[in-house]
């Protein structure tokens, strides 16, 4: 069972919800624009050999402190503080989308703080030829259609939570607005904020994981990242969209474990 805990940083300026489980080497998971509302079951695959911590980022759900964060530099320093507060020494980091973007920035700013880096369809670069769907300009139903390799399957498997009661609907609208607004604070209107100038500093061994059917950050970004981060490797997950760890958890966990071990 994962343990839920709220961590307070900088005299309460940040109150961060975290879920953690397992024991062993430190592993941090940084979620993407969907947010995180509990322990994701695919992380169970790591708890045998790792102490895994999954924080909910400021501005998502009930985690606070977004007002103190204006840029990727602020975010990186915040996560370095959080890593220290969690007592994690040189953790491996898995980051998804925006979370991958933050992990890459953090590893460029302080290369010694990270053991290994797993970037899952990270944002942070821009390609005029293949920009990807603008997630800030589509409705919730359109999002469901483009986020998955198999949208119907994703709904059937419960990967897309469909609110039923009016209260659930209101809460879902609010949650989505908060999550995307927070992501937009760092990614609007184009996610290129200069990572390509800094990425050369990343020394951590890096794995780039992409769902082959990702329409949000298309697989064409994988070679761009590989070129920027020395020694990085790319793993493509077939039959997966922007969230391969949810749509193909078996293949995803196996590939990442092999890299981290």
């Amino acid at each position, binding site marked *: 069972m994962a343990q839920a805990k709220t961590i307070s940083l900088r005299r309460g300026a940040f109150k961060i919800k975290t879920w953690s489980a397992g024991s062993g080497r430190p592993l941090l998971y940084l979620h993407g624009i969907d947010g995180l509302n509990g322990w994701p079951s695919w992380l169970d695959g790591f708890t045998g050999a790792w102490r895994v911590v999954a924080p909910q980022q400021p501005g998502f759900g009930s985690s606070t402190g977004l007002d103190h964060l204006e840029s990727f530099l602020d975010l990186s320093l915040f996560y370095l503080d959080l890593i220290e507060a969690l007592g994690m020494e040189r953790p491996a980091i898995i980051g998804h989308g925006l979370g991958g973007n933050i992990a890459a920035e953090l590893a460029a700013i302080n290369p010694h703080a990270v053991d290994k880096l797993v970037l899952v369809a990270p944002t942070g670069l821009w390609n005029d030829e293949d920009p990807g769907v603008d997630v800030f300009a589509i409705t919730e139903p359109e999002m469901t259609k483009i986020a998955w390799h198999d949208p119907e399957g994703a709904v059937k498997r419960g990967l897309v939570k469909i609110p039923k009661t009016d209260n659930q609907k209101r809460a879902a609208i609010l949650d989505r607005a908060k999550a*995307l607004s927070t992501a937009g604070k760092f990614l609007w209107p184009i996610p290129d904020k200069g990572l390509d100038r800094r990425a050369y500093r990343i020394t951590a061994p890096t794995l780039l994981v992409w769902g082959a059917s990702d329409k949000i950050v298309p697989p064409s970004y994988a070679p761009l990242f590989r070129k920027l981060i020395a020694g990085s490797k790319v793993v493509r997950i077939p039959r997966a969209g922007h969230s391969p760890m949810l749509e193909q958890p078996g293949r995803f966990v196996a590939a990442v474990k092999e890299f981290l071990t």
Partner: protein
Amino acid sequence: MKFHWFHLMPYQELPKDFSEKYHSVWVDVPSHLFDPVAGHRFYNEYLDELEFAAESGFDGICVNEHHQNAYGMMPSPNIMAASLARTTSKAAIVVLGNSIALYNPPIRVAEEFGMLDVISGGRLVAGFPVGSSMDVNYCYGATPATLREKYREAHDLIIRAWTEPEPFAFNGKYTQLRYVNLWPRPIQKPHPPIWVPGGGSIETWSWVGERDYQYSYLSYSGYKRGEDVMKGYWDAIDHLGVDNNPYRGGFLQLVAVADTDAQAEKLYSPHIDYFYDKCLHIAPGFADAPGYRTVATIKAGLQSQFGSQARSLRAGLKWKDYIDGGFVVAGSPATVREQLKDVIERLHVGHLMLLLHFGDLPRDKTLHNTDLFAREVMPHLKGMWSEWDDKWFPQSLGEQEVQQPAAAGTSR
């Protein structure tokens, strides 16, 4: 009671199948649909219409700012206002307004509004909208999460620039200027009246009230739906403990006047359809960028008038539905008088902005609508709210002092 003639300046030649074939009238409407030669005609006709409205006795003539928008061809309303400042001499020039968070640095607005106020002899109303999500977030790339903070900082800078007599330094989060020193300062003291067109955030209500500004709801959905927003505003005013002077409030209403009710339908119905079917064909994904509306506003259940909900509400509506639903106030002068009296009382507003041009309404019908309104409707309602002072209307120079344009090469 004050009446203002409002122009959106729509592009009139959108293809017949526009709403089926194109994604949105705003943001990504392809510019190859715009014929500049047709645009030349429209701009000049539209300025004529605003000038005609001023001559017909409207208290103010209104222009506003939209970008990448086929129903509003005014990325810079100040250019239109500059022209009108020269060709009119009495009507207030209501620029509703400049999206102040978009100007870099925002003193550009202080300067241009300063120029307009000085050229027009103190007839400017300075509108400070946050701006629609389409304009500010999608077309001009402003980050939704910080938009309102940036707006408020821009506001503080502009007000200081207008009111401080000596140069000062401004160390803002979004704008840093070592030397702020405004030339030309506006004629009106301490500055032109500030109107805030809103609808996207409930915090705006008390912000406006605390600063003694005027709040206007520019609604295309008519007075029945406008009631919720205006009630929210008046409740906030009440809560602040300031008087509920109706001139603190304004409302935009589509109006179509003809000799008879039947005539109104015949004259205006196709153009109302053009307005609602084509001009408001806005992709729901662009209606409301995440973070544009505040959490408190979403919690309060206030809907965007451009969102999916508003769109499905309007789907398939025809003339009669628009009239019954209050979207459009239309009919004979008597019908319109009676309904507008009700609108003004219900919403408790001292400033009514009239959309007497809508969609692809041609010039002759626009002038007819304007003329009938000015002669047969306006005089009957002018006396409303006479017990209140309007502190939100421009204090222009007296008639003796206002300069009139002279033909080139002549002197007076």
